[in-house]
């Protein structure tokens, strides 16, 4: 396989700032969501993303332009590990501990009410999911992450991503069935 050149050499315009805006800034929402999961704290999450941005900016000239989200998730995860090691060296010996850490819109009022009830029930159901399961559903459904990207972000095997996603969505579906918002003929698989 041909090794890719750093993005700036390939583009030839020397614009680190342009590369930063192109590859880093669009990923801020996904970074913040993963950071919230890792830190369990809004303030720490924002700080972690800020540190990640700085590290990404410093190394943007060596980034090859392929898979920016995966590249940024790696920086985020490593930054998080380093921050925790500095804060709690005795409690953070194992890097794997990081893991603990169709358009239905309508103008019909009756249908809008039904959609609103459905949406509220989905929101209520996802709130009851365990945090590890919830973040996987959010990354896939809200941030449009691929399974591989979620695996990379959370340092878990892709099979774990799939099983948490499936169990999470099934839990939501079961709650909707219990509230009579979904046809009972829908299977329980």
């Amino acid at each position: 396989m041909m090794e890719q050149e750093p993005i700036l050499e390939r583009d030839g315009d020397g614009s680190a700032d342009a590369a930063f805006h192109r590859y880093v800034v669009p990923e801020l929402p996904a970074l913040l969501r993963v950071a919230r999961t890792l830190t369990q704290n809004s303030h720490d999450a924002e700080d972690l993303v800020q540190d990640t941005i700085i590290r990404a900016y410093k190394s943007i000239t060596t980034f090859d332009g392929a898979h920016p989200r995966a590249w940024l998730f790696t920086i985020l995860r490593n930054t998080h590990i380093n921050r925790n090691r500095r804060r709690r060296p005795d409690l953070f010996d194992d890097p794997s501990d990081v893991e603990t850490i169709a358009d239905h819109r309508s103008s019909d009022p009756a249908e809008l009410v039904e959609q609103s009830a459905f949406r509220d029930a989905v929101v209520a159901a996802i709130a009851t999911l365990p945090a590890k399961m919830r973040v996987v559903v959010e990354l896939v459904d809200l941030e449009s992450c691929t399974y591989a990207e979620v695996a990379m972000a959370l340092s878990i095997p892709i099979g774990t991503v799939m099983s948490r996603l499936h169990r999470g969505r099934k839990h939501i579906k079961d709650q909707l069935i219990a509230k009579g918002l979904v046809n009972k003929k829908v299977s329980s698989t």
Partner: protein
Amino acid sequence: MRDNLREMRNCHEVGQWLQHYLDGELEPVVSTQVEEHLETCVRCGLEFDTYSRIKTALHDASALSPELIEDQIALHRLRRFADELVGHSGPDA
């Protein structure tokens, strides 16, 4: 009877791939097979519709939740920070 059994087996297999199909994670060949099955199977069609509605509802709800409003404020600060970083230092700094 034999057709019913084959249909049930297909439903079981498709059920395993349904969420991957929803997320665009299937190989094109398998994706086409799932698509063909969904065209003719009411039960799997309902199942797919439910997961699809859940995905859409989550996406729509994200714009309304208080947590997301908090996220939007944090994101605004982070974007401003990113702009300032680019404006005040070079990547070698």
